[in-house]
């Protein structure tokens, strides 16, 4: 399994990270080494092994469907880059 430059650019786009051609080239070299390490996984036969998503098996708790949170809008928006009238501002998305 080898990664190519176009893969790096593709995943950077999926991850919403701007990447320059020089950065992509550097990332390609490093990711190639990292994936060589990861490839070791394929040396083990895992047929019939159940995947494990958590160290401790837990069931999702349920709770009553009622309002438990009070309005914290001002506090929550205090760290926002740009707000106006209680709204988050972003570049125009609908013409």
């Amino acid at each position, binding site marked *: 399994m080898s990664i190519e430059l176009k893969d790096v650019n593709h995943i950077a786009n999926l991850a919403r990270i701007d990447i320059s051609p020089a950065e992509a080239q550097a990332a390609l070299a490093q990711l190639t080494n990292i994936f060589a390490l990861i490839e070791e996984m394929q040396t083990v036969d895992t047929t019939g092994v159940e995947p*494990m998503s958590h160290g401790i098996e837990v069931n999702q708790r349920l709770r009553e469907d009622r309002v438990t949170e009070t309005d914290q809008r001002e506090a929550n928006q205090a760290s926002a880059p740009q707000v106006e009238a209680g709204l988050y501002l972003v570049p125009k998305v609908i013409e």
Partner: protein
Amino acid sequence: MQNASLKQLSAALAAKQISSVELTRLFLDRIKALNGDLNAFITVDEGFSLAQAKAADARLAAGTADPLTGIPIAHKDIFVTRGMRTTCASKMLENYVSPYDAHVIEQFSAAGTVTLGKTNMDEFAMGSSNETSYFGKVKNPWAREAVPGGSSGGAAASLAARMAPAATGTDTGGSIRQPAALCGVSGLKPTYGTVSRFGMIAFASSLDQGGPMAKSAEDLGLLLNVMTGFDPRDSTSLERDKEDYTRDLDRPLQGLRIGLPKEHFGEGLGADVAKAIEAALTEFKKLGAIIVDISLPNGRLSVPAYYVIAPAEASSNLSRFDGVRYGHRAPEYGDLMDMYKKSRAQGFGAEVKRRILIGTYVLSHGYYDAYYLKAQKLRRLIAQDFKAAFEQCDLILGPTSPSVAFDIGAKAADPVQMYLNDIYTIAANLAGLPAMSIPCGFGNHGRPVGLHIVGNYFTEARMLGAAHQYQQATDWHTHQPQGI
């Protein structure tokens, strides 16, 4: 006073030999004197800390104090704190002030402790050397040219330099234990689900676990008593009765079965580290422990499995940083997509971006089964190895890290070499098991060596007991760097 144990500090506060304000002042002054050199703290706010100390003194005077009331604690800058910025050592959160406290912070506030400041770390806890922090590298108090380990490197360095009597850390692949080992202090990652992750900025949610760091096992037990507890706001928080983690401290080690995984004593382990570990094992035998040879055959796969699972979870978790609700937004951008991409490119450092890319790749269409699912299957095999091992032994001992602290810059250019540093610690995170590191001597260049202790689920008290008995018989945990 800076070398006192938490029990001694607690007694001094109770006996009015010192006030919390005086004690806090003492450590703030040490931070002022040493932090310019060591860079262990990102944020210190004397007014904030002293106000909390004053409140603690009032509580001590009123006779409503808890065991740790009035004791200053350094919190890793990954736990969000109301009224003091939380950066996660990233430009992305350089100016972030949380509107709420993490559960861990709430627990310490309820106990009346004082927040001494926020400690430096690898950016978003991704690193083993503290070199990825946006706020600069942390230096190892034992050797200024060496790394302190990571990601909780600021916490470990602050303890070694006696800038704080106790600290909090988080551990996703070794981030409490490895820096504890490299800085000659003690640190414990509890069983997954024991400490709430609420308000602990997420890296890899199925692996992240908060834990205490301190000078001794006894101190760790006292801190763990405060940190743990059920929290409904963390869906993986376990509903268990509160327990006293200091209950086994005086339990003799007679008959304790110690498992030695042969895989942790083979190729790749430094001779100096091996020698210190052997000496520690001899000590445990003297204390009555029995050594059992065990095997963890799939342990070698923990690094590759981890570097699929952790980046996959990180790429999802870090998608929340979009420059809209909080965090860095690029000063100039075109459309919305351009704003996301530039904000994230500028806000994240190189290692964080690398892991987001790995995670995005392994989760992308067509690769999910080959990578993510495969890694989760290996995770099960790794956990099963431990299950089999714990039928033969009570605790597993070995080295925390293959070498003593390496020099700053030595591994920074080669991510794979850096990742292999966590070869002995990662498996415990994958399995969800409790694990700790305590100092057990010195290796090359007089740099500290850490002894790794892994226990079965929920056996923290027994682990702390074994560590405490060892620390009663030896004095490695009392050594401190020169010139501090």
